[in-house]
């Protein structure tokens, strides 16, 4: 680092360091209690098993609407598991009354980024486990895996960007978990529509050029939500 660049670089650098510290703190406390991860994984596993028990190996049926049904089921499993676990990190701060200490220790942007990273990590595990279980129990066959992974990752990023600030909102309300789903669902409708249709294309074996517009929409949605959250988070956290 050159001395001239220091004044400009330092705030961003310290911000990212603080965000990293918040992320590590959440990770450590999660590893101690394993509350969110258990809730999420149990949900993912039970959805996959329930679908398999109910309709059998629908992954083998590749004609007509079956592909759309597979993709919808996958996103339903991901969505509801996510809605069960993603609010955890903020709710815990309120329940254990550590929020005040955190407010003193780090700037609000750093807290938002740290929590966002934590939720992204949770979602990465969730995506991995859900897809594995769908492949085992439903025999989901993905014809274009790279497009599928790209859509899944971008969809999860958009999901995390939308729900993290909502988690901070509901942490301060009563009836927390029910309210989280109520607040999240309307805002997630566009995301779900794009993700379900794009994923269905990837399962069916569409090329990258066919699936690219879906990926673009997801990126646009994620960026809009991320910027809006970054601007609005201060008002939620400092109230």
């Amino acid at each position, binding site marked *: 680092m050159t001395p001239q660049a220091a004044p400009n670089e330092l705030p961003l650098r310290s911000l990212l360091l603080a965000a990293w510290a918040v992320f590590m703190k959440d990770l450590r406390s999660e590893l101690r209690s394993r509350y969110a991860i258990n809730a999420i994984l149990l949900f993912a596993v039970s959805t996959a098993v329930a679908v398999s028990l109910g309709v059998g190996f629908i992954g083998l049926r590749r004609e007509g609407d079956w592909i759309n049904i597979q993709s919808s089921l996958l996103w339903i499993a991901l969505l509801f598991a996510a809605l069960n676990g993603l609010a955890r990190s903020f709710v815990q701060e309120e329940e254990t009354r550590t929020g005040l200490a955190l407010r003193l220790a780090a700037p609000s942007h750093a807290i938002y980024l740290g929590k966002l990273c934590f939720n992204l990590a949770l979602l990465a595990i969730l995506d991995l486990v859900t897809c594995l279980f769908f492949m085992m129990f439903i025999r989901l066959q993905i014809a274009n895996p790279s497009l599928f992974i790209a859509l899944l990752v971008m969809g999860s990023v958009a999901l995390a960007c*939308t729900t993290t*600030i*909502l988690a901070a*909102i*509901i942490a*301060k*309300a*009563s*009836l927390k978990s029910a*309210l989280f789903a*109520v*607040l999240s*669902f*309307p*805002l997630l*409708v*566009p*995301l779900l*529509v*794009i993700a379900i*249709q794009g994923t269905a294309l990837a399962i069916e074996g569409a090329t990258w050029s066919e699936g690219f517009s879906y990926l673009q*929409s997801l990126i*646009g*949605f994620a960026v*809009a*939500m991320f910027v*809006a*959250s970054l601007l*609005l988070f201060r*008002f*939620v956290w400092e*109230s």
Partner: protein
Amino acid sequence: MRERLASVAKLFIGIWLGGVVVAMFLLVPQYEGLGNAGRIIIMHVPTAWVCVLAFTISAIYSALYLWKNKPEFDNRALAAAENGFLFTILATVTGMIFSQVVWGIFWNWDPRQTSIFVLLLIYAALFALRSAIEDLERRRRLSAVYSLFAFVTVPFLIFIAPRMAESTLHPNCAFIEGSECEGIELAVGKIGLLGDRKVQLLGLSQDGDVVTAEVKVSEPGLTSEAILHPTWSASEGHQIVSPEFPNLRYRLTIMSADMASQSAKLNIMAPGTGILDNRITLYTFLAGIFGFTALFIWMFRVRSKLLDIQEDLQQREGAFA
């Protein structure tokens, strides 16, 4: 002086809307084929426009509240949201009634239906959030944040939604003379609207170069149905036979067909259908939009004033206690 002006304006809105209702039932000519059901459009479109207006006003006042931190702004945002919710329900219900009478189904997940459904959910979520937070200051802040955050998703809903459904029942070409219809892209089995006729693509078959579509055309009001067979040349990419709609001068034509995805783009060939040709209908329509907007603004002002007074009273009670 202001009070007198306000009461004059109130009277004016009442008389104006009364006039719109009278014109809607007595002056506007019956729309050919639709019967009296067609008249509901005079109410449906203005209420739908007010939904958009109310949601925007609510978001603007939420932003102002976060910026200036004055309770009045939050009262205005809440008043706009509450009245907007009423108008959203009105628009949804009038649309559903019209849809059932004219097309035979209440709900079709048409892009506009999807967006208004999500709007209702957002309002419900906003009110649920407000009722779940005890502390007044915090309730205001968090609901303002949610309302703004929800507003950011709206463009995605409007621009992304049209691609969720291949068919739409909302007219996608105006009935004004000289306007060009774009036609509709339908997959086999889907229904859509051309002009005022409900069309359903029953099947596509190809015989050599000639693609034949089987299209069920329903009269407005579902009084009668007919099956038409327009044809299209795959190699040259233009229509061959474009049969006439039953009892009309207009023809049904295929603009393009795709056998692989089993879908075809259908269009109406017409010199201009002209529902809004009729001056009285057009003016009643515009008067309806003006009247409902004025009604909304009046309701919005009354409600926000009421919320201000309520808050004032609460503060005084607190001071005396």
